[in-house]
């Protein structure tokens, strides 16, 4: 196989797995932003919380990565549910700018707490042996870790889709999304549905944050540093559209990975250029429905 092609294929896998991780982190935000109309700038901080809890469980409790990961995700979901029932009730009452300020305040607090507990240094989760190394398939070198991230994200995204399409809860959520008032009239407890959705979204972010530490390393300022990235994934995808988030995360992950490799001089610039171009052509995002 020609060298250029194999490089391209390897990069494609890297880009797609990076994109899928971005999708995991940002899919919860598209629901809060697009459906609940809440500017939640704390969302990326939940990814960090998930990552740090997993890290702490592995370090202090000596848990295996595959045990610590689900526990960390569940712990983050519990935390987010508590916050949603308490502090976010204030956030819901504000106008967009107030929501933005309040949630960025929450991100500041989370950042400070994490910095106090975990220290200011950059950390990443030590992967178990099973995920290290590379596979050689037809002259291609594929990192096992990347394939793991890719497989896990695809599985989660698939489960999410099945849950939305074929379960009662999914039907309720879709109803609440399409027309909250009408959904309430037919007896759906819309706030409860949104609470659970919020927690699931945060859990997905936590999962993305925990498995993605090799791509986006953990640090106290994670919540602020990668906030922009998460926001643009949602904005490009179109607010409130799960499908849009998937497309935009894949597209941006792909563009970013390719851009950094083939045009290193431009580095991280390309992704933002792409974002601007997409938003100019389609101000409502790729799959925009709510303007």
């Amino acid at each position, binding site marked *: 196989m020609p060298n250029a092609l194999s490089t391209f294929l390897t990069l494609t896998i890297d880009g797609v797995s990076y994109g899928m991780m971005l999708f995991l982190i940002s899919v919860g935000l598209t629901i809060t932003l697009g459906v609940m109309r809440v500017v939640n700038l704390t969302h990326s901080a939940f990814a960090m919380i998930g990552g740090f809890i997993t890290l702490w469980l592995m370090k202090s409790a000596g848990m295996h990565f595959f045990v610590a990961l689900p526990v960390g995700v569940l712990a983050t979901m519990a935390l987010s549910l508590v916050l949603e029932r308490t502090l976010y009730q204030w956030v819901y009452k504000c106008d967009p700018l107030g929501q933005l*300020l309040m949630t960025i305040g929450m991100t500041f607090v989370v950042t*400070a707490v994490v910095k*106090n507990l975990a220290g200011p240094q950059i950390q990443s989760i030590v992967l178990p042996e099973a995920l290290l190394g590379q596979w050689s398939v037809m002259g291609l070198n594929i990192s096992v870790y990347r394939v793991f991230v890719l497989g896990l994200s695809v599985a989660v995204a698939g489960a999410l889709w099945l849950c939305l399409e074929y379960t009662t809860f999914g039907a309720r959520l879709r109803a609440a999304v399409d027309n909250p008032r009408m959904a309430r009239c037919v007896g759906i407890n819309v706030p409860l549905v949104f609470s659970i959705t919020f927690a699931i979204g945060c859990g997905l972010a936590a999962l993305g944050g925990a498995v993605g530490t090799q791509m986006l390393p953990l640090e106290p300022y994670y919540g602020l540093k990668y906030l922009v990235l998460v926001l643009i994934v949602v*904005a490009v995808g179109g607010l409130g559209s799960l499908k849009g988030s998937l497309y935009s995360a894949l597209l941006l992950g792909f563009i970013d990975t390719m851009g950094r490799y083939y045009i290193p001089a431009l580095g991280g610039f390309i992704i*933002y250029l792409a974002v*601007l171009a997409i938003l100019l052509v389609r101000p409502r995002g790729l799959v925009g429905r709510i303007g």
Partner: protein
Amino acid sequence: MTTQSDAHRVVQAFRRQRYNLADLALVLAAALTLLFGEYYLALAAFVVIMAIFALSLDLAQGYGGIESLGHAAFFGVGAYAAALYALHFSSEPVSGLLVAAVAAGVVGLVSGFAVLRTQGLTQLMLTLAIATLLYELANVAKAITNGDDGLSGYDVAPVFGLFQFDIYGYTGFVYAFVVLVLVYALLKKLVNSSIGQTAQGIRENQTRMRMLGVPVERRLWVLYTISAALAGVAGGLSAQINRIVGLDSLAFTLSANVVVMLALGGTGRLYGALFGAILFVVLSDRAAAIDPTNWLAVLGVVLILIVRYAPDGLAGFVARWSAKRGQK
């Protein structure tokens, strides 16, 4: 004509532009800083720069209802423009400020075309994307901007050929303060003029203003461009006084900080921006010296509480208090 009626006319003129005691107090505070705060002049100059920056955001956000999470774009463009002008053309500071204003204004004019087509969340995202784009551009164009190391090594000539920038920062502070007064007066004039009034109308009810025959898009565009140019002035001042421009002048943190300042001070009142800048910069400087991590937590809590209990900020609080006092 007697001197008394002259004085009376001056008072009338100030009233017409709605100057009040708060403005006088701020001038006094500046004078006291100059007299007694000799060790804090660098900090005071930074306060003044941030005040101008917050004022520029107040014009867009408080009066025009244009929400921005990327106002640092204009600050940074102004800063780099002033620094590059000083480096390659002339070290004369006043023309440098004009260059900074024009450069940032042009960026505002062009980006306004995209930003003002949208509203609400998309608008926030778009301003954010533009600012991040410029940040990455400055990071990539190392030949021009020196990348991470920051642009420095340029001279700034004495202001009007008379006032040399001194090591203690007297000139820097006075220079920045004079610019602040000019900007403030210009904004007072602007927001009380017909364009400022219609802008407030657009903020409250865009459809109605359109029906009244106001060219909504054009008004907002003008407002946004002026706001960008003023942010550029703030950036230019920062470049001239600090003699260095780094990537942080374009960073998201700065955009977020100025939004926070305005929220603390209160939007749509101009002096709210001044209060907010003073409060934020002084507190964060003091607190950062003591304990930067916990300061961030305190700031977060304060921000949450302010939005919850005093959504119109410190200035709104003062306004309510003085209204109450007026009733007695």
